[in-house]
């Protein structure tokens, strides 16, 4: 059998090298880089938590405090990402569709959460939403700071630019003709926006959601100032990890980290699959 026949019958094979050189070099570099930055640390994490054995790992996983912390972390990140999807999309809409004085300023401000040290944001939020703070005092006796609601607010701040920056470019590409086509077919503004424009943005909105959510799950700096960190109530998983570390319980810390990692990975994988599905449907969006 000739070489070409083998290649044709093989079920899986390397992509043929293209006319653009450097495939071997760039792939090698990517793998090395990925190993050093992501794979090896993650493997170390798994290795370290494996010291506990299944029963020890399981004990930590089912520990009430761990479960509550995971619940708070993922629950608040999920809520914050949801809120960001709605308001981030509206904000992106305003920034792309209208021209008004101060638009550039607002556009620049969206990126602030990227640049600001998150602890600074956390302290500011805590001061503002505390029961005796400017905003917090208005809502008394309802408490915002030092409850999971405070965490959600901090995470909304952290995650906002992810949604805005992923949705914005796609929104800018929306063809005026598509809107006009909807209008000639009898659609009013409301129908045009909700049946034509927004569904087309689904993949970008999903990406924004995934990024904001992932960022929210891992957020530490801003949350610990506003959360109050009450065990079983407003204690987030990353904080619990730090607490375990301070107790020199490295295995315990890595075990919680491993659980977080697995849940995050599973959720991101699902979101990616949804995206891939919608991309196949709608073409390259």
């Amino acid at each position: 059998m000739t070489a070409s026949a083998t290649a044709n019958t093989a079920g899986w094979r390397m992509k043929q090298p293209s006319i653009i050189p450097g495939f071997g070099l760039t792939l090698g570099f990517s793998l090395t880089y990925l190993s050093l930055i992501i794979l090896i640390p993650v493997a170390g994490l798994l290795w370290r938590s494996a010291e506990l054995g299944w029963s020890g790992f399981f004990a930590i996983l089912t520990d009430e405090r761990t479960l509550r912390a995971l619940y708070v972390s993922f629950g608040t990140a999920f809520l914050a990402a949801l809120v960001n999807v709605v308001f981030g999309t509206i904000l992106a809409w305003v920034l792309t569709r209208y021209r008004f004085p101060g638009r550039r300023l607002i556009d620049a401000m969206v990126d602030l959460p990227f640049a600001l040290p998150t602890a600074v944001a956390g302290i500011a939020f805590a001061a503002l939403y505390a029961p005796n703070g400017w905003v917090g005092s208005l809502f008394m006796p309802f408490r915002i700071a030092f409850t999971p609601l405070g965490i959600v607010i901090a995470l909304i701040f952290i995650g906002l630019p992810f949604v805005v920056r992923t949705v914005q470019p796609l929104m800018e590409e929306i063809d005026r003709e598509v809107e006009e086509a909807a209008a000639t077919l009898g659609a009013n503004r409301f129908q045009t926006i909700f049946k034509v424009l927004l569904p087309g943005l689904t993949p970008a909105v999903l990406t924004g959601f995934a990024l904001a959510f992932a960022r929210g799950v891992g957020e530490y700096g801003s949350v610990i100032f506003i959360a109050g960190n009450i065990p079983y109530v407003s204690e987030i998983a990353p904080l619990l990890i730090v607490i375990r570390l301070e107790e020199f319980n490295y295995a315990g810390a890595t075990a919680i980290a491993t659980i977080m990692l697995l849940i995050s990975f599973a959720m991101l994988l699902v979101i990616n699959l949804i995206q891939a599905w919608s991309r196949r449907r709608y073409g390259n969006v």
Partner: protein
Amino acid sequence: MEVTINNIRKEFDKFAALNDVSLKIASGELIALLGPSGSGKTTLLRLIAGLDYPTAGQVFFGTEDASHSSVQERNVGFVFQHYALFRHMTVAQNIGFGLKIRPSATRPPKAEIRKRVSDLLDMVQLSGLENRYPNQLSGGQRQRVALARAMAIEPRILLLDEPFGALDAKVRKELRRWLREFHDRTGHTTVFVTHDQEEALELADRVVVMSQGKIEQVGSADDVYDRPQSPFVFSFIGESSHLPVDVRDGTVLFQGEPIGVSEGTNTVGDLFFRPEDVELTDDPHALFGKVTACRRLAGTRIAEIDIANNGHAPFHVEVEVPLHAPIELGSEARFRPTRWKIFPGQK
């Protein structure tokens, strides 16, 4: 539906894109708006659709003044150059969209929508593709989906904005013929915009030639080609050459010399003629110039001739010559227009 456009004017920031345009479109007619870019043809189409509003003037649908109705109220079918399909919807969903979004009082039942969609798919010859997404279709197929979508709402008039502009030449020709058949079958009043004169002349019952926000001429393909009413139409449609002439005592003079062509009224203006309306001659009273190029064009040859102009840049004309005619590069050729038109104007 008969459409009447009365003295329409449209300004964009003080720039008049349309200037006092009036046009009557008969029911069932297929009309082409033809002109170079910037002539206002697309603006006129959008004003009929209600996608823009005129600065002054009215649009009548039948006897109803539609000038101030919204695009939704006008119930027109509009097909865009770049299809403007909804890419998150299947072909069937795209076509059914206009019916599905109607308020429940006027919305047909689901089964009927489905039936209409499948009828339309038949009509545009895309049956079997109803569950595809637009990005899985070719350009020609997309444009036919766009047409089916526009037809689904039973529009009073069908408007097409450069419908074949984004397609390659072969598909364009096919779709052109197909649109003509489609129109003959459905009998919808149809207006389409194009900058391609071949398309306009071949397809339309009447051609509206536009330039700089004005209508230059309205007429059948024969009218605008054989009897152009303005220098613009003469030079925009088909090939033509022109020379500055005087008419004195019934004789046309070029550079003060008779050229063997006569005309009734005395005037000063431009003599227009087409390459095919020229005969080669030995007569001393004829135009003559140097052949600078000669190219084969399907069944004939086109000679490019430079006529000397007292040291200024020479006049450049193109004439059709028989394949066997003894024309050589650099030689002198004598010729005389057999059909021509003189438009008065400054010399």
